[in-house]
Each structure stands twice: as structure tokens, then as C-alpha cells.
């Protein structure tokens, strides 16, 4: 492979899944139209979802899912030790994602609810960056294949991928869609990082913030506007906490159990 006439070595990549739904890895396997191109640009060393060939000599690791057990901590640390670049893919890996909804309850109560007195190992829900150093984060639930390819192109040529610095609303307006607020639907678009082409508002569903908070969002006035528009505290809490995208923002109401 060449870039500006300079031969480039194919980066050796590997994919790993932790606590999640494998929906992010599936996006990568799913768009066959460009699979051949992608495979022309990288060498896949390990991708258990689609391949039984595996080789630990990878340089770039794409990691999906949250970390919830000690075994997973160990596995992730090993991956970190091998990979030159570690990329967290998806809301579970970047934010904790929906997994975090169970953090509202004590762990023993949670295990009891699902497994009774059966012994099951689990622990708190952690995003990858709470366990190891993460080089890049690719947000979304699920990630978008196009953005994944964009990130891969950057990593191949050694350019730092910069995610959009503006909110979902900007993309939404480019698509000239009716604002869902005018339909009485709440939307986290004004405070969420763009890059998904406003896919939820385009389908008449408000944004839930799966891509995480946009830099310099003004949460105080946003939450104020939501209240003025008559949205209930519980409704705000459910939407804003669904993907754990805005944790640490203290003006956001807590979601109770």
C-alpha cells in the first residue's frame, strides 16, 4: 500500500470484545462493500467474531465493551502491553454505556436478582480508560462503520483523528430535519458530540447522547430549557443517564433505582 507514493506497511490490527453486545464489532464485519478495501489496508491478526485464525503480533487493538470482572482487567492489561495503539470502540468501552444502568444498585442485590444464590463473579462497571491508557476513543452505540474507516485511515498515516467538536444539532440542521423538540420529544443533540449524522432525530427519535458530551456544552442552560419546556425530572434523568454519557455533570438529575 502506498500513500503519496511512499510505501506504507500494513498495520497489524486485532479486535477484542469485553462486556457488551458485540454490536460494534458487527458494524465492522457488516459492511461487506468495503470489507475488501479495509482488508487491503490492514492485516487482521485476530478477530474472533469472524475468524478462527489468531496471532498475537498485533500493533493496533480495537477494544469493545466495558470491564466488569477481574479476569477482564487482566485480559485488557495484556492487550495494552502488546498494542502500540489501543482504541476503545463504542459507548460501553468509552463511557460504560448502558451497562452502567445497573450501577444504580448494589452488586450483591444485582447478582441476587438474576442468579439467586448461585455464585457468579462480577464487579463494578468500568470504562476502558479506568483500567488502562486508551489512545483513541471511537464513540457510539453502535459505532458507525464510516467513522471506523475514517479512524483507520488516520491511524495508518499517523495522523491524530479529531472527532467533531460541534454538537449533533449542527449535523441535524444540515439534513434539514424538523427539530424533534417541535414534536414534543426530548433530545440531547445540543450537548452531544456530532459524527452520527443525527441518525436518531432523522428517525423522529430524540438523541440519547450515545456519542458522549460535546466539548464546552452549556449543561446548565440546556437543563433549564428542558424544564421550561415541561419535561419531568425523571424523563430528563432517564435520557441523560442512558449511556452514562454525561457522568460528572452535576446539574443533570440522577436516575434513581
Amino acid at each position, binding site marked *: 500500500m502506498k500513500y503519496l507514493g511512499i510505501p506504507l506497511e500494513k498495520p497489524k490490527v486485532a479486535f477484542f*470484545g*469485553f*462486556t*457488551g*453486545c*458485540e*454490536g*460494534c464489532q*458487527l*458494524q465492522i*464485519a*457488516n*459492511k*461487506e*462493500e468495503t*470489507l*475488501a478495501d479495509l*482488508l487491503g489496508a490492514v492485516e*487482521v491478526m485476530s*478477530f*474472533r*467474531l*469472524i*475468524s*478462527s*485464525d*489468531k496471532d498475537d503480533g498485533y500493533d493496533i487493538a480495537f477494544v469493545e465493551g466495558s470491564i*466488569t*470482572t477481574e*479476569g*477482564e482487567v487482566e485480559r485488557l492489561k495484556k492487550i495494552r502491553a502488546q498494542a502500540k495503539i489501543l482504541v476503545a470502540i463504542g459507548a460501553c468501552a468509552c463511557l460504560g454505556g*448502558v*451497562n452502567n*444502568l*445497573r450501577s*444504580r*444498585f448494589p452488586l450483591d*442485590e*444485582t*447478582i441476587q*436478582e*438474576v*442468579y*439467586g444464590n*448461585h455464585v*457468579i463473579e*462480577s464487579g463494578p462497571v468500568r470504562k476502558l480508560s479506568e483500567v488502562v491508557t486508551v489512545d483513541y476513543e471511537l464513540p457510539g*452505540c*453502535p459505532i458507525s462503520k464510516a467513522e471506523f474507516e475514517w479512524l483507520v485511515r488516520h491511524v495508518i498515516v499517523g495522523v491524530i483523528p479529531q472527532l467533531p467538536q460541534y454538537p449533533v444539532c449542527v449535523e441535524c440542521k444540515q439534513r434539514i430535519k424538523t427539530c424533534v423538540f417541535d414534536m414534543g420529544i426530548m433530545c440531547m443533540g445540543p450537548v452531544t458530540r456530532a459524527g452520527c449524522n443525527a*441518525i*436518531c432525530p432523522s*428517525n*423522529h*427519535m430524540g438523541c*440519547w447522547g450515545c456519542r458522549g458530551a460535546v466539548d464546552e456544552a452549556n449543561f446548565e442552560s440546556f437543563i433549564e430549557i428542558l424544564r421550561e419546556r415541561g419535561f419531568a425530572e*425523571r424523563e430528563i434523568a*432517564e435520557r441523560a443517564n*442512558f449511556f452514562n454519557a454525561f457522568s460528572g455533570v452535576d446539574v443533570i438529575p440522577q436516575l*434513581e*433505582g
Partner: protein
Amino acid sequence: MTNILEKPIDIHVEHIARVEGHGNIKIGIEDGKLTECTWEVVETPRFFEMMFKGLSIEMAPLLAARVCGICSISHALTAARAAERALNIQVPETAQKIRLLAKHAETLQSHVLHLFFLVAPDFLNVGSVIPILSSHPHIVQIATQLKGYANRASDLLAGRTSHPMVFKVGGLTQVPRKRQLKNLLNELEENIPYLEQAIEIFKGLSMPDFERETEFVSLKGQDRYPFIGGDLVSSDGIRMGEDEYQAMTNEYMVDISTSKWCKLSRDSFAVGALARFNNNYELLHPKAIELAEEIGLKPGSHNPFFHNLAQLVECVHVVYESKDMLTELIDSDTSAFMASYEVHAGEGVGALEAPRGILYHHFQIDDEGKIVKANCVIPTGQNHANIHHDLHKLVPELAAQGEIEAEISKRAQMLVRAYDPCISCSVH
């Protein structure tokens, strides 16, 4: 004849590849005896039943989708159905049709992914689809075409291929325009030749010869092949209502699995394409029956490897039924797609045939519409015990035939793969 059973065998497949999620196969043979033979599930639990707690019932389809990236449309629709049954909501006909069409798209994309990307490499003796891209590009081309259609159908009907946002409790957020439906129908028709080619390829593969008498559980169709809701049926003669799913699944815990196991009349039962096929054969689209006859797949098949063939037959069924439904929809009034309803306390069960088998969601809600209790029983969770028991019959048979360790390992993995297990989904 030397009996290979006398040679020690020690197979440990950690995190079997080309399946969704994390599971291990362990096989040991010593002094001619089977010392170990387990299908072990080591996926970490996510505790979805707890995640639902305290959320508004309107959130159920969105959260349920995240149980599984491959069959998220099924999960969202099952949760919506459970909620609608709890709140006595009658979903408008247009919404029901769009939902079924979206489900057909998911079934097609899931079955094609399984057959071409996960199963085909075993028959071509390679580790993945990657070498097939250069060795048999036409095979990948067929899969690409069919999945391309299924992906675009999901995008249009569900919002996207994974984690749909269009399915709301009560109906849909929107319906596609007639022009979009017409384009989709055209695209479907253009892809029928690729379906024919897919059939040709899989017709030529001979499935391993193995049988174990099995109880098959699925929905029972009334006048059409079942996908969304209806009675539950077993090939051992049990029939129950949707609400009685717990008596149909009998979940219990085992030490070798973080997923629960299930049983009904025997030690285990099977769900999925072959169960649906066996229990509802006469309701398949005539084109699908034609194919089944041609490949010699008959109702009452007890070879688990025939799951693959039943999936192929179902691909034909969903493509032709989608064609009929799209045509019908284009000629009908699609303006009513959302039911109005009031939230009240209640309890509801939704049963649905996900690509890998029958799936249940169950919610109890309080008078404000908050979920107070949730339960999910997953297709692969119902298959684990059956996979385990199949292995117990398959492995000694192979060993007695004198197969070498590598072949036993490969065949055991192919058996697990035939069930198309979705392991992280089963643990949820």
C-alpha cells in the same frame, strides 16, 4: 481395526471463534473413556434484568436492543410487544407489517452472516472469510449482495441495522414513504438471482451425518409461518400460551455456564430455524417448500447440522414473503402507525422468533409506568443444554469411527456453530 478411543485426547478450545460471544469446548478421552465433554459458557453477565428496573416502560425497546448487536431488531420488538400486552395496546396494522418486514430483513442478514461468514469457512477448510475474498470472490459477492439488501431494508424500516430507534411502544416513530418502499421492492427483486446462487452453493455442501432425537420448541403459526407472538409448541406435544413461557423454559443454573440452561420434557431442547421448520413446515412459502424438497430437508429432522439448511430455507421464505408484503403495503393506506394509550399498572409477556430461536421478554410495571420487574429468556440460553448433550453423543461416535483429535475438535466446533449461538445475548 484400532480403536482410537484408546489414544488419549485432550481438546480445549478457548473462546471458540466465528460465534458471537465467549464459550469453550473441553473434551478429554483417556483409557478409552470420555473423561470430559463440556460446552462451557464464560461470558461476563451484564444483568439486563436489573438494568431495566426503575426505567419507564417506553424505554424498554431501546434498552432491550442492546442485549444483542446481531438481533437487536428482535429484542426491541419483543420488548415492545411485552409492553403493549401489559398495557392492552392494539398496534395498528401498518406498524405490524413494517415491524415484520424489518424482522425479515434481520433474519436474512443474520442467516446470511452465519451461513457465509461463520459456517462456509469450515467447508472450505479456512479459518475465516478473509482468504475466501481472494479464493472464491463470487461467494463473498453473493453474501454482500444479500446482506446489502437486508442492511438497507433495516436502515429504511428500523432506522439502522443494529439498535433500531423506530420501534416505539404502541407502533412506530414514522413510516417510510411509498417511493422508498417501491425502491426497496425493486432492490429486493434485483437480488433474487443472488438468492438462487446462494442456494446453489449450499445445496452442494454435505452436512455431517449425525442425529440425536431432540425436542424442538418454537412458536406455532396459525395461518402463516410464525415470527411475532402466538402459542408456544414443542415437538413432544406440549402447547402453551405466550404468558406461560416460564413453564415452557424452566430456567436453572449450572456450574459450567454463566448462562442459565433450560429444559422441558427431556434433559434439553432445541430452538431456532430447525425447530421452527419442524413445527411449522406446512406454513412456509411455496418457494421455501420447493427448496426444502429439493435439498431433502424434511420436517422431523433430528440432525443439528441441518440448522444450517433450515436457515437457508428460511432465507427463501423471508425474501418471498417480504416481496408479497411490500407489494401489499405499497397499495395500502399507511397513515395510521401509532396507537394512543394510557400508562397503567400491568404485566405483559412478549414472545418472538429471533433468528436463533424463540425469545421472551416479560415486564411488570407500576401505575406510573415504571418497570418494577423484568425477565428475559434468550434463544441461545435455551440451546446451551442441547449443544452440551449433542457433544456427548457426537464425540464418542467420532472417536469410535477412528477420527483424529484435530477432526474431532473441528467437528465439535462445527456442531456448536450450527446452532449459531449468540453467547453474550444468552448471558445478558
